[in-house]
């Protein structure tokens, strides 16, 4: 069976969804992510859906599940890169992604995650000073 790779980036996990998920793949991802959060003690999960052209109530529920399960394990979830057409459609469908934060792209998502878990952005100038 296909699998969606989960990347570990420091304290965060990054998932890039490249295809429209069929149900079994989506459920497997939900499972894998929860296991990874618990194993790595990640503080945040970033889900990049910029390549996803449809989010229906099933997919929305999966995203919501991931967020609420992660929350129990002390990790926040940010969905990044939702296409405008998908966002408009979700509103009309009536689906609210409870507990899911959204950001424009992975970078903004990382910033949001850092602020959520109480991290200040890395101050590069200070870092440079320290090195001197």
């Amino acid at each position, binding site marked *: 069976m296909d699998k969606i790779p989960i990347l570990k980036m420091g304290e965060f996990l990054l998932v890039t969804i490249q295809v429209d998920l069929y149900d079994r793949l989506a459920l497997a991802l939900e499972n894998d992510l929860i296991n990874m959060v618990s194993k790595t003690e990640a503080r945040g999960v970033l889900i990049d859906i910029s390549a996803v052209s*449809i989010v*229906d109530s099933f997919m929305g529920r999966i995203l919501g599940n991931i967020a609420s399960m992660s929350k129990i394990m002390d990790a926040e979830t940010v969905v990044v890169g939702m296409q405008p057409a998908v966002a408009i*459609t979700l509103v009309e469908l*009536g689906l609210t992604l409870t507990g899911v934060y959204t950001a424009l792209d992975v970078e903004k998502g990382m910033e949001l995650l850092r602020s959520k878990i109480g991290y200040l952005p890395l101050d590069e100038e200070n870092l440079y000073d320290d090195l001197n």
Partner: protein
Amino acid sequence: MMTLTKEKLTILREPDVIFFRNKAKEYAVKIGMSLVGQTKLITAASELVRNMLRYANGGEAILEIVVRNNIKGVRLTFADKGPGIKDVKQAMQDGFSTGKSLGLGLPGAKRLSNEFDLKSEVGKGTTVTIIRWKNGL
């Protein structure tokens, strides 16, 4: 109303959902529907196909390109021989579900379509028809 193209697909398993969605998208692209329109159409289609699989163990999905007053649209029909819906008015309400779900599929699909029609008879089955016009809002 006139039908230009028509195709019938049998929906029996979960992978058929994505196959059908892709087909519906093809039809929408063919008539020049906007990206938002396409997305609304396939999202509605996805909800209705899922319902058919979940509550009626599958059924038939028909794709059509139709014309009315010189305007093209995509009409999708979902017909099953499942248990039918006892109280259609109730089923059309946001949040009503006998499947312990969100109860968004039917009312959401209606909002996402320009035209929506549901006929159901207990013990006989359910048929849902939706249309999205090329320039529909």
